[in-house]
């Protein structure tokens, strides 16, 4: 049965107010910006955002007033600096107060790994002696029952939905992703359900020709959205490069509350959907992000 639907329907049906949502699980690439912008347009409220670094997507959702709580290792603008909206929310309560649960990249990985394993927690030696447990009340310091050494217990996380941007998927959500994966697999397995956003919809035969490249079991996928260009300004290996300048423009414009409102108007509210966004971005700019060369992997033989 096909799970293909529009981004509008996927967000309306599967990201209700108050949901906990993982996005940006691959770190700086494959960020589901199109999904985030639709969440802003649908004025979703009281979301809990979960992710490692998120780049500017979390900052945008916070600035649009969609977010109540952030469970993350880092929120900002990777190549340009701080996230102005995140700062305003934490320092001045603009647009409103945020609850921040601090993690490191390792502990957020472990929390989702535990969630996917159905385990209550996973121990680590990381963060011992730091102040991060002070701002993450879920962590427990303990002693290993085996060697007696100090350990930090990282409680599991089971988000409502993981939104993953991938290169290609079939219409049932059997999806191929390649490049570095960050915590995409952990996020998918930990979450109740998965929304797949794909650059291309391909035949089922193409996916099953290479099952090692599949990101998650499709029986957990609730929606498949075909959204070419849906990760811009983040890169998609084999499809388009990173639009570095976009991050800097965002950084400059969102320095003030007024500038942020202008940015949201221009790039989110006044465009109907991702196609409208790409049109606004313009042909020339999109061409500048095209691949300079192809680098195909050698085929592998699954014969028997």
């Amino acid at each position, binding site marked *: 049965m096909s799970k293909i639907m529009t981004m509008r329907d996927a967000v309306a049906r599967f990201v209700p107010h108050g949901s906990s949502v993982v996005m940006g699980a691959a770190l700086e690439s494959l960020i589901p910006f199109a999904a985030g912008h639709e969440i802003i347009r649908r004025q979703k409220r009281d979301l809990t955002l979960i992710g490692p670094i998120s780049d500017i997507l979390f900052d945008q959702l916070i600035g649009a007033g969609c977010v109540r709580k952030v469970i993350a290792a880092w929120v900002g603008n990777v190549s340009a600096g701080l996230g102005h909206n995140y700062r305003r929310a934490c320092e001045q309560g603009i647009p409103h107060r945020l609850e921040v649960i601090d993690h490191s*990249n*390792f502990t957020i990985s472990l929390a989702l790994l535990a969630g996917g394993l159905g385990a209550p927690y996973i121990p680590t030696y990381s963060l*011992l002696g*730091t102040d991060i447990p002070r701002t993450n009340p879920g962590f427990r310091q303990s002693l290993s029952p085996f060697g007696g050494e100090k*350990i930090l217990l990282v409680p599991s996380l089971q988000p409502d939905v993981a939104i993953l941007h991938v290169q290609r998927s079939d219409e049932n959500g059997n999806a191929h992703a390649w490049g570095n994966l960050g915590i995409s697999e952990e996020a998918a397995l930990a979450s109740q359900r998965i929304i797949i956003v794909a650059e291309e919809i391909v035949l089922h035969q193409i996916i099953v020709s290479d099952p090692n490249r599949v990101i998650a079991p499709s029986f957990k996928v609730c929606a498949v959205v075909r959204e070419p260009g849906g990760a811009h300004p983040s890169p998609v290996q084999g499809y388009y490069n990173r639009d570095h300048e976009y991050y800097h423009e965002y950084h400059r414009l969102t320095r003030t509350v007024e500038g942020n409102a202008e940015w949201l108007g221009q790039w989110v509210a006044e465009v109907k959907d991702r196609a409208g966004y790409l049109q606004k971005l313009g042909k020339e700019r999109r061409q500048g992000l095209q691949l300079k060369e192809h680098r195909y992997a050698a085929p592998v033989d699954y014969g028997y």
Partner: protein
Amino acid sequence: MDYTPQEIMVAAAAREIRDGEIVFTGMRLPLIAFALAKQMHAPNAVGLFECGLVRDTPAPELLYTMGDPPNIAGALWATRMINMMGLLQRGAVDLGFIGGAEMDRFGNLNTSYLGNPESPKTKLPGSGGAADIASLSRRFVVIMAHEKRRLVERVDYITSPGFGDGQGWRKRVGLRHGGPSAIITTLCVFGFESSIGEAVLRSYHPGQSVASVRAETGWDLRVAEDVHETASPTAEELTIIRRYDPQGFWTR
């Protein structure tokens, strides 16, 4: 020869990488330091990137982030972040690089909150992988801007652990090894005296002095007996840095 503070920092950072080491490469300047070290004195160094990449060759062009497509093409391994972190916790990583907004004399770093975390004066982006690198690598090197308000007596919040309150602290809190080995700033390079776990001025960059570094440091500065001027980047090093970052995005 003329060069920028960032260029001497990249050259100094590259010199911290020994040949054959497994290096956790952070964001920004260390990305270039890794490329420089590979081409100079450490051709067998291997780079780990927390997003889930392993490389034994520098990316073919400038990286703005570690997840940029040129870093994935030609990688030795493209995988999950947890595998990178597992290598780190398992003790496989010789050296990690991290940046800092605020640091104290024991090499503790704060990239989370200035002021009270309940109502922070400034909310900084957070740990990312830095706290893990500082907790779990065999040694780590900090790269940061040198200003009196950043180099403070005690940080408000320890995001990434240095030597805590001095010698013996890491062991006491349960960290099994590691700690900072150098801090490279816009003005100087600090080393660490392991018996006290405290930063010691090792060298000042050309144009600086012990006095000028002291004036910009928020604690009572300790100075190494053999303090000297930081070696300027050589013409060859500058050529490599500028070939890699021709627009000077990170280095100008």
